[in-house]
């Protein structure tokens, strides 16, 4: 049965009434009307629904909303502010360096998988600021891109890594 659940998403508190087993994804999509996390498989196989929970990438399509109460949830929309907070910047940039690098490399085709690609790459660079190509491939291996843009994503992650080192 539905119950009240407190969430913290992109640094803002929310109270939703939902069945505790509702996957977080449906709450983010339909109640919070976010467009970053999105449905791809509902099976944690593809990565289109990824969000950060306390800085760790998880699959929101199989994570019950009740399991993330009180935790810091960051979606694609919140990544610039998340980055600014970690880097102790005075203001959030318009885009996270990973997002900017995806643009600079013109990596995107349809872009549907880019929510997960960007979220995962942000997590990777927060832990491993200067990853090797092999480390990037391994970290990103659970995220599928049907358009075949993997090579440009690798270039974009490398570019973002360089830019973040400068910043």
């Amino acid at each position, binding site marked *: 049965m539905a119950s009240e659940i407190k969430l913290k998403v992109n640094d803002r508190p929310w109270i939703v009434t939902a069945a505790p087993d509702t996957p977080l994804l449906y709450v983010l999509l339909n109640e919070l009307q976010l467009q970053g996390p*999105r449905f791809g498989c509902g099976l944690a196989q593809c990565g289109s629904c990824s969000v950060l929970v306390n800085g760790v990438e998880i699959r929101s399509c199989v994570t019950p909303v009740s399991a993330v109460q009180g935790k810091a949830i960051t979606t694609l929309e919140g990544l610039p502010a998340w980055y600014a907070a970690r880097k102790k910047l005075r203001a959030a940039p318009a885009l996270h360096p990973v997002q900017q690098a995806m643009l600079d490399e013109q990596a*995107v085709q349809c872009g549907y998988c880019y929510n997960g690609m960007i979220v995962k790459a942000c997590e990777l660079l927060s832990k491993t600021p200067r990853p090797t190509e092999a480390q990037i491939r391994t970290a990103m*291996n659970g995220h599928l891109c049907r358009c075949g843009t993997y090579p440009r994503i690798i270039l974009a992650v490398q570019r973002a890594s360089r830019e973040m080192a400068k910043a």
Partner: protein
Amino acid sequence: MTLRRDFLKAGGALVIGFPLRNLLFGQRGSVAGPPDAKQVDTWLAIHADNTATVYIGFAELGQGNSTALLQVAAEELDFDMSQLKTVRLDTNITPNQGGTYSSASIQRGGPQVRTAAAEARQALLRIASKKLSAPVESLTVARGIVSAPGGATVTYGELVGDKPFHLAFTGTAPVKSTATYKIVGTAVPRNDLPDKVSGKYVYMQHARVPDMLHGRVVRPRGQGAYGAGAKVIGLDEASIAGIPGARVLRRGDFIGVVSPNEWDAVRAARQLKVKWDEAPTLTGGDGMFDAMRAARTDDRIVLERGNAADAIGAAPYKVSHVCHAPYQSHAPFAPNCAVADVKPDSALTMCSTQDVYGTRATLARVLGLKPEQVRVQYYEGSGTYGHSCYDDVAQAASLLSQLAGKPVRLQFMRWDEHGWDNYGPAHVGEVRASASAEGKITGYEYEGWQHHWSAIETSEQLALGKPAAEWPPASAQQVNPRCCGGMYDIPNVRLVNHHVDGLGWLKAAWLRSPLDLSFSFTSEQAIDQLAFLLKLDPYEFRRRNIKDERWLGVLDAAAKAANWAPRPAAVKLSRAKTVTGRGIGMGTHLASYGAAVAEIEIDRATGKVAAKHLYGAIDAGLVVNPGNVESQIGGQLVQAASRMFKEEVTFSKTHVTSLDWASYPVLRFEECPRVTPVVVQRLNERSSGAGEEVMAAAAGAIANAFFDATGVRMTEFPMTPKRVLAALARG
């Protein structure tokens, strides 16, 4: 679920409206289209703020055509790219340019947009000439500002600002010379990407309308034979009684559930007890190729020149082999989705179709409405690579809305999309070819067995009992004379198409580069084998047999990019655990020219094959945006590797069994090759497609690289470890 946030309550759902600008055009959008293609106003509108909207009938599918077609308009109008925008496709607003097929947005749409823009520019200059009291020939334009020799200026916006042209589109206005191009031919960054990386982009899966229900279809997991439908034997509506708000909707064998809450709809669809007739209707995967080869067929000679059989019989060097290619799935990364609001005398359906007008016609038939009572709006979904389930989901959402009497948003689940796709058809190819001692190809025969595309969607079959039917013959469903040896100068050629009746097989449609990977896999290995028999370098052998300079151009470009060093194939065979090889291949779809080089690695112990580096060259005539085309080539090479190594629809005698990314694996990051795209720019040739033409070439190159590494020919793909080990054991 409810949310205690007043602004969200007030805002309700995300309502997708039209740009405010359109309110200024009272008539635009208020009546059923297509708008009159013979009017300039149908194609573009100049606004008072000196910007313009270009109305384009091609869908942005992630390939960047919405940017490229604006480049064409900007070039002719002398606008900057920042001054132009386009609108979403809508049967009440955008012109009918015939659907976004065959990678032909630029090929077919470019000339229309170009001449419409040129016609508008001519009209604008006539008005400016009067206003500035200067002859038309003396005027210059930049950024939409017209300047007269004395220094007087006026903007396009000031000249017509938001008023219609009321001008016939004659198509006779002179267009600019390609030598003067400043925007066309440059890698303008795509206009859709900023919103795609920030999360602001509205995909179909995000579209919402007020007061809508969430729907899901309930079908067997995985389709049976096309035409057999899915017969309901028993339905227990009480099985979802525990989910308040969810209800079952049914018409014939079409079953869906709707609920105000999406998760409840998902749960209800999973929980609803339906007993389906599970009679075997399929051959099963193992018996497929033999059954296809043995089927009664409708045979057609696609091309006959000289006497191929005699030439092959008399030649000193000859090859002959049979190859098998599987059904493969579009498997869009996002399952298809649609929102429909069907009323007794009208319908609005939002979906991700490649052809809003085509979808409107079938929706009208399904709903019992006239086409002009139905409005279809296009929202981009994830990449579709051809006819995935977008029409099926549009019909299903519309049927559910009609049954519910309310707007319905329907998203397929992963198993619906994977299991009820229109797959790219399986193929049996037989090739025979011969060469003279001088290394000239003397004879070539190709025979292909496959069925056509499916014309009737699953929803219409299930709901209305509409009999299954195939598409009539069309070139992309048959042996392709350009891809099957067409790049070579061969005096004796015979191409035969064996059309297998598609009822009783899997539902099918065009999948990116339809059948061409299968043709090239079969044909380019035969060509390669002739080179091997002659002890010639396979690149050199191809060069000797190509006359057409555009085919030679791409072949040379691919070889050069890969630093191809001449040597015959399979002369460096090794017994090491890991062996490497390189191969070259050619191919295309219906137009353009493609060539590729593959460098691959094979683990002889595990049978695992990986492409390390793929090089692809394309000649697509005048390339409007080389950056986009390079991106497309990269995607084609990676997707071709995925299809050659991994992708295969599996099925039992009752249903399809590849229903998700575990049972239908695709290429991943760790398996991804490096890619080198090469655009052969030809400014003075007509633009042709660039979204699929390198895939076939890559398929041939990969197969030939396998032979170079192992001395063994693969005769079936995907080249899974099991097949590779079996092939190596056969030797």
